């Protein structure tokens, strides 16, 4: 029994329990030390992930390879960044309860389990471990009806998705006789292995995961939950869980179900097309910046799915590069959203950014970089993210997908430009409150990454290539 395969997760779980206990005991407010301890635990887990060997453990239910390492580092980074951003905001909004960082830590643990899952059962366990803290977090501002509504909505729809997943898993088990990914792959590659029942099961599993990454047509919860949840929670929602769910989708579809690509490819193509188009058009009319970012994230998921639909070595690498760059851009943009406070109150309309170019030039510059980058304008990182998913799509002849992708990125440029326009062209409103240090750190790090990615793309590309090689060998 190779328990060391799960060493980072074990460490993280132990740390979470210890921090929870340590947080309860003192009489005074322990949020800050607890948050720092959580970030420390994430760093520790990150180091352990990097040092870890490859292999499977727990009877083949658990796997650690370059792919899982890549995605885990990404998820840990996204979670740590969102904690860093959240501290000051939560304190000012009266949400500085020490459970917040611990819940984020537990959700992160769930993500890591998901990413390493090599069995439908592990997958489900990880997904639930991720989802339960998320439901609580969405409703974290419990005196605020909108937050409570967001939590409830997310819970109801999330439970539905879990049901779908379990149903799909049971169908697959029933028709293929196993839940282990490796054995599933063997069973499905055999002649006549992919029976109708298995295909229906796959569709259910894809639907459940599509719900988690908020791909069309399972996106309905996203704008409401993003808008209702506290902005610090939205920042966390919009990056880290998506990384884990995308990782799982890639592992499931490229691994055990890789030989049945003909069956699921059209679903992913349709979800990708729908997400890109909806993300582009639905965001245009939004005045609430959190809703706008929700639709924007749907659009980005569409681009990511394009790489998955095309598949193959270059397609999957495009997915990984895209999601990595998306995390950076998105965390940066949300750092700005978190910094949007005026007169001690959080504001969240697009127009509240008016004149930011005058009142806080550095933050406006960073936000403009993120917006142009999300619109895919070179030489910013977002352009290369789009390029690396467009390349395989064109190479494999997915012309419809590629054309819709570039056209929808033009449409989405409209609303990204609107934010730039509000910041630079409109008359200035009174200055926003001074931005906290955590926000500045995240802004600086993600802004530099987004701006200068084009100079040093090689390390990320090489890491993604290695990760994909581990997956499809």
């Amino acid at each position, binding site marked *: 029994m190779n328990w060391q395969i799960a060493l980072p997760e074990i460490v993280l779980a132990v740390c979470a329990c210890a921090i929870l206990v340590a947080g309860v005991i003192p009489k005074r407010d322990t949020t800050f030390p607890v948050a720092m301890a959580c970030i420390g635990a994430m760093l520790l887990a990150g180091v352990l992930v990097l040092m870890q060997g490859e292999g499977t453990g727990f009877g083949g239910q658990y796997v650690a390879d370059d792919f899982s390492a890549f995605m885990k580092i990404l998820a840990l980074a996204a979670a740590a960044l969102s904690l860093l951003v959240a501290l000051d905001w939560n304190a000012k909004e009266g949400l500085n309860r020490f459970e917040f960082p611990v819940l984020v830590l537990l959700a992160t643990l769930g993500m890591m389990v998901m990413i390493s899952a090599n069995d439908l059962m592990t997958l489900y366990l990880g997904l639930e471990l991720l989802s339960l803290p998320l439901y609580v977090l969405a409703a974290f501002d419990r005196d605020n009806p909108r937050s409570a509504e967001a939590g409830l909505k997310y819970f109801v729809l999330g439970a539905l998705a879990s049901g779908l997943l379990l149903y799909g898993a049971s169908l697959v088990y029933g028709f293929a006789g196993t839940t282990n990914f490796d054995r599933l792959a063997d069973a499905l590659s055999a002649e006549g292995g992919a029976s109708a029942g298995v295909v229906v099961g796959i569709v259910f599993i894809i639907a459940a995961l599509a719900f988690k990454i908020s791909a069309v047509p399972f996106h309905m919860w996203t704008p409401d939950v993003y808008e209702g949840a506290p902005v610090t929670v939205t920042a966390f929602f919009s990056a880290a869980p998506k990384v884990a769910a995308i990782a799982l989708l890639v592992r499931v579809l490229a691994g055990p179900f890789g030989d049945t690509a003909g069956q699921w490819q059209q679903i992913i193509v349709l979800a990708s097309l729908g997400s890109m188009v909806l993300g582009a058009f639905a965001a245009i009319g939004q005045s609430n910046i959190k809703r706008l970012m929700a639709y924007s994230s749907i659009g980005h998921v569409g681009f990511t799915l394009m790489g998955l639909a095309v598949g193959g070595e270059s397609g999957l690498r495009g997915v990984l590069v895209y999601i990595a760059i998306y995390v950076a851009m998105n965390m940066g943009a949300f750092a700005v959203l978190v910094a949007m406070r005026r007169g001690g109150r959080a504001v969240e309309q697009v127009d509240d950014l008016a004149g930011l170019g005058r009142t806080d030039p550095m933050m406006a510059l960073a936000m403009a970089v993120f917006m142009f980058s999300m619109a895919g304008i070179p030489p910013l990182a977002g352009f290369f993210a789009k390029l690396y998913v467009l390349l395989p799509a064109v190479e494999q002849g997915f012309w419809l997908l590629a054309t819709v992708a570039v056209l929808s990125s033009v449409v989405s440029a409209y609303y990204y430009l609107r934010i730039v326009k509000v910041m*630079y*062209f409109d008359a200035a409103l009174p200055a926003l409150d001074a931005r906290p240090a955590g926000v500045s750190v995240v802004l600086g790090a993600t802004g530099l990454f987004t701006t200068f990615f084009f100079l040093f793309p090689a390390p990320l*590309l090489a890491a993604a290539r290695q990760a994909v090689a581990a997956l499809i060998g």
Partner: protein
Amino acid sequence: MNAAGFPLLSILTFLPLVGALIIMTLRGEEAAVAANARWTALWTSLITFGLSLILWFRFDKSTADFQFVERVDWLPEFGISYAMGVDGISVLFVLLSTALVPLCIMASWESVQKRVREYMVAFLVLLTMMVGMFCAMDLMLFYVFFEAVLIPMFLIIGVWGGARRVYAAYKFFLYTLLGSVLMLLAIIALWFSAGTTSIPELAEFDIPFAMQVWLFLAFFASFAVKVPMWPVHTWLPDAHVEAPTAGSVILAGVLLKMGAYGFLRFSLPLLPEASAYFAPFIYVLSIVAVVYTSLVALAQQDMKKLIAYSSVAHMGIVTLGIFTFNQQGIEGALFTMLAHGVVSGALFLCVGVLYDRVHSREILRYGGVAKIMPAYALVFMLFTMGSVALPGTAGFPGEFLVILGAWAVNPWVALGAATGMVLGAAYMLFLYRRVAFGKVTRDDLRALLDLSPREYATFAPLILLTLWMGLYPQSFLSFFSVTVSQMVNSHQAAMQAASRLAGL
């Protein structure tokens, strides 16, 4: 490594960026920051221009190859490199860009008073992108620079523009982006079929005709918007009218040339058969542009809009010349591009001079300016003549060569281009008469001051260039005649090969 002995083109490209970084770090009182930003921007752009003169003196005019070549692996895995170089087609555009930007900065010295620092940063970034685009020898690199131009230009129009600046900035950005993303798909497709993105290597690659047609259409979507060709020109009058004076100068002087440059650099050499196939279509669009936009220009009430429409008409002459596929036509097109860059830039500066004083661009607002501002009227007249293509000014040699080239293809096409020259004379003289001559009808005009020393300094190089290009065009034509003749030869060879294939 190259004729200059050091990476000249990279320095030209990225020196302005260094200046921009310095300006961004300026701190202190607003007035002091503004003054420092102006001077830093001016010196940076002047040094860049001074360095670019090395190109003028050291460029070898007897070869069609790329010169001053630099190459560094950028994305080795994909075979994309950071490759810079200039040949006869691009070298003068690099010089045009570096020459116009210092003038723009001088022209904005007093007219831009708010957010001076950001303004200067935007202009220097714009200079980097323009020079980089003309120097790029790699398709992907070209695309990166080509698109990146949008960001500073969007901000320049949107922040420092006129009343409808937001609309104009959006229209400019989205129109151009829409065209460009289709080109991106074409670039990727080209890349996969040829296995390289290096422009010189691509030129030797034969692309099947059916694919050429698609690629041509995709490139056309991007370049036609950028040129702009009728009927996708509608962003231009809006962008010109709303942009600040210096923005209009760069827009007319350099950004409009990017589309025509793209046709010359990619469509003609890489897709010869498709270019020939679509040539009649381009002729029709060009002649419509020449005639129709000239007529529209006649009806304009706004000086900037009039000059904007005249730009569309001149660019129609350029596209016509490019698609004649003969020596005169292409040389004429290149020369017209340069001349238009200088003359229309200068005309926008002329409008800017009046606008700074009166804050109106209405033609009817003026009258009798020649009596009040004689020196200005003389300068304005010279550039009006340049735009009309009077022999002896910059406009003439290019348009004459294009008409010659067009005559060799089809006399009717030449007739269409010539109509444009007549109409051009009509609207420009009509503009000049209404602004400069007649009675002074408004009293506030009597108090106008003539050109200031700064304005003399801004116009002097442009006057010199306009006369030089008109009187001795050979010193400019000699830069690109070898490159163009090689281009014409390889086009003919490709067409003969294609017809032989069809004969089989």
